[in-house]
């Protein structure tokens, strides 16, 4: 509807466009009846001022035929009664025989010549023929054109006018209808503002009715919202992922809860194996908040939350390789954008932050980012498969550990897709690998290696990075030794061992580092330098 108005002044807009407008205005007439029954302020306001454009609809019916021809230059679309001239022209072209008969009878009557005929030839068109017997009764205004043996042929001004009309009628009809059509377009266009307003009102009502429909169909619930300025809170009971729950995966969607509050828990740190549903859960939270702020009901059994000023997401690194940026750089770009723009009123979703680089770098970056966000005080969901990160919850009150429940049946695992409080006991990466179809021999070897690694407990001491106590230093010395021996089985023995003296130099440097004085970007640059050096 508004699009037709947008195009209406262009020459390309034809009859079919206006017919489409007429057709779409028809049901609009019924809308006020429905709108009148609604009381909600937004709809009421629309109902009160709703302009069904009845006059335009009438105009279109009055001007255009019921089933018009759509050929703009040939006519056959304007309704009768619009223009006297047009009606007459059509009358002429349609009823030319009758017209001639009428004229013939009329002429016979006034001349009293009963044998008077009207005929046509190509030389001089229509003419009146009078036999010689009646020659004397011919009125003065007859103009003689031809004399035959026993008759005279005449024309009259009226007859010539008729002839002119009949011969040019078709042509003139085309022109005239085109003109009238342009007039109609102009008239409609002068109502452009009203049409736009009506279209806007319909759009709003349509959108709201659509949201009501989807809310009813998908069992959504009205969330209870707090203003942006209120204490920050995000509580969801039995929340579902609006998109995934609609896709039939042959698996019942498991609803999950969420309870973040400014004064209690602001950062939810979720651990658990890949594929368990961390990303789904975090996305669903973001989607629910977004839906609510768009005005939609949400897939929960109950919910209460404060409006957020922005939603930031940093989700798994996979895309955009085609653009030539390294995954890690891209990931860090996005992380930087979040840290630089987020406020305490924002909702932040971080999925596997720091995954695009080595474990060592990754954990450090993730740790620093979580600390930064904690200071920023934004409500945050952060998923990681770095188990080591869970230690951060012991240091920061507002960070709480959560995990996705996984049940072990022998060496197999079952995903329960349920978020529970507390960290995951292990990462199940190897089991997931089995599910993914990795050859059995590889899986078994992986389990062996893992056992050895776990004995050395190397990984658990990585958070040392940000601590400066002697105790930790001692531990890290142990790490070096233990790791060295555990890698004894490795093919790269020499390489790995030879790295250690140098590495400890950097460890010293790291210990001296005061992260609190650095921006995330500085920290990042520093880490980048460090990794570069280490790689050399």
């Amino acid at each position, binding site marked *: 509807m508004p699009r037709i108005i947008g195009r209406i002044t262009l020459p390309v807009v034809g009859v079919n466009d206006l017919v489409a407008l007429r057709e779409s205005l028809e049901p609009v007439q019924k*809308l006020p009846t429905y709108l009148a029954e609604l009381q909600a302020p937004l*709809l009421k306001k629309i109902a009160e001022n709703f302009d069904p454009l009845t006059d335009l609809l009438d105009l279109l019916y009055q001007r255009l035929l019921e089933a018009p021809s759509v050929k703009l230059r040939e006519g056959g679309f304007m309704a009768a009664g619009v223009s006297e001239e047009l009606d007459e022209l059509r009358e002429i072209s349609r009823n030319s025989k009758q017209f001639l008969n009428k004229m013939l009878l009329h002429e016979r009557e006034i001349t009293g010549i009963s044998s008077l005929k009207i005929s046509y030839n190509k030389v001089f068109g229509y003419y009146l023929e009078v036999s010689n017997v009646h020659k004397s009764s011919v009125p003065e205004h007859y103009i003689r054109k031809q004399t035959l043996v026993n008759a005279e042929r005449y024309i009259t001004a009226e007859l010539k006018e008729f002839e002119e009309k009949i011969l040019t009628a078709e042509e003139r009809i085309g022109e005239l209808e085109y003109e009238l059509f342009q007039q109609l377009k102009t008239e409609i266009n002068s109502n452009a503002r009203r049409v736009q307003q009506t279209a806007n009102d319909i759009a709003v009502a349509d*959108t709201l*009715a659509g949201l009501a429909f989807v809310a009813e169909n998908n069992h959504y619930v009205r969330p209870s919202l707090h203003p942006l300025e209120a204490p920050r809170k995000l509580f969801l009971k039995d929340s579902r992922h609006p998109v995934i729950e609609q896709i039939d995966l042959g698996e019942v969607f498991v609803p999950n809860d969420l309870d973040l509050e400014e004064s209690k828990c602001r950062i939810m740190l979720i651990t658990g194996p890949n594929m368990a549903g961390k990303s789904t859960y975090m996305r669903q939270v973001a989607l629910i908040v977004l839906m609510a*702020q768009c*005005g939609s009901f949400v897939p929960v059994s109950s919910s209460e939350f404060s409006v957020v000023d922005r939603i930031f997401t940093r989700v798994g690194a996979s895309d955009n390789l085609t653009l030539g940026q390294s995954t890690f750089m891209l990931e860090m770009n996005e992380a930087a954008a979040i840290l630089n723009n987020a406020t305490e009123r924002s909702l932040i979703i971080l999925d596997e932050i720091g995954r695009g680089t080595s474990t060592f770098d990754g954990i450090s970056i993730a740790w620093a980012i979580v600390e930064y966000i904690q200071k920023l005080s934004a409500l945050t969901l952060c998923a990681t498969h770095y188990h080591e990160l869970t230690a951060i919850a012991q240091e920061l009150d507002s960070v709480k550990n959560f995990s996705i429940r996984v049940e072990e049946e022998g060496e197999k695992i079952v995903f329960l897709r349920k978020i529970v409080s507390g960290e995951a006991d292990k990462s199940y990466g190897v089991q997931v690998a089995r599910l993914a179809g990795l050859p059995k021999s590889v899986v078994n070897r992986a389990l062996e290696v893992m056992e050895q690694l776990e004995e050395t407990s190397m990984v658990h001491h990585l958070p040392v990075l940000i601590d400066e106590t002697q105790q930790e230093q001692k531990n890290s010395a142990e790490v070096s030794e233990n790791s060295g021996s555990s890698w004894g089985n490795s093919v790269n023995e020499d390489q790995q061992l030879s790295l250690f003296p140098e590495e400890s130099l950097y460890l010293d440097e790291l210990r001296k580092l005061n992260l609190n004085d650095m921006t995330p970007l500085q920290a990042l640059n520093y880490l980048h330098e460090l990794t570069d050096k280490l790689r050399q």
Partner: protein
Amino acid sequence: MSVPQAETPMMSQFNAIKREHPDKLLFYRMGDFYEMFGDDAIVGAKVLQIALTSRDKKKKKSLPMCGVPYKAYEQYLNKLTAAGYKVAICEQMEDPAKAQGLVARDVVRVVTPGTTVSPQLIDPNRNHFLLAINVVLRAQCLGIAFVDLSTGEFEVAEFHLNETHRFYDFLAQLTPQEILLTQSRSEIESTFLEELVQRMTQLLDKINSADARSVTSSEQISGLQNAQVFPSTGRFNFIDPYHFDPEATQRNLNNHFETLNLSGFGVDDLPHGVAAAGALLRYLEETQKCDLSHLTALRRYAFDKTMLLDEATVANLELFESQSGARKHTLYHILNHTKTPMGARLFRQWLRQPLLDVEAINERFDCIEEFRNNFMLCEEFRECLENI
């Protein structure tokens, strides 16, 4: 352009008109055809995949030409605008049968990627925006205005240069088909513009390629192979800085809206945005050469009342397209149950611009609740909308 030595009267007419539209392809009406000549013909024949011939085959250095039939020109025009070209349509201004000597011709319309209103090129469920950016470095400000010529939406906003990220988020949200910029007047300006254009190109290329992907996978736009992939050249238009002149633009806007001043639109505090709106209007007047009366009001873009979603988040949350490029498993697809094209466009805007004001959100909730409590009514209402 190569011009034969002895110009026929017609060719000199063509050349005169072409000189006024050097950056456009000229559709030169000759009887039942629109002809293109010279370089235009070479480009046109290539893009349209039609035969390139020449005016006089006997001469060695003959002028290339190609033509499209007048009766079916729109599809060819669409192909060219979709490929990012601007096309000037030059009509015969008098009946050739009655004309004495050479038929008078003039450009009656210019079609550009951002101003096309052809239904074949416009997705009925999306807006089609032309954006003007007024770079005012001394005020540290980007004044912007955008218009959807097909629906009459016409809005202004301003961004401070220290919040350019908001501008880029806004740009990603708008995804304009064409952008007007001022020609640079100084070195600082050209450096700034260069960077701006580069970042916008990157951003829009990313979005457009994603769009193109999802279009081919789900919907077919009739007969257009590369409809969404605009070469960056056609997307940006650099116009004379004078067109952004505050006073001239005010005058122009007042003339158009038949107002004494623009206070009634509530945009007085956005002078740079208003100047951009004026420049936009002038551009439309020059290219469209027809009635723009359906642009009935100037509105203030309410970005301070809505949440800006950055492109990464829109992609990550799969609001409008899934990572695989399909549209089916997206929030928009699940939630959009509107029945009219304008409803679909509005809902897309709602989803792209979540609200921040609880009262405004609750107003929507109240409506949904009421519709839901009267579900029969809601269903009848929606059935009625279906035919609009």
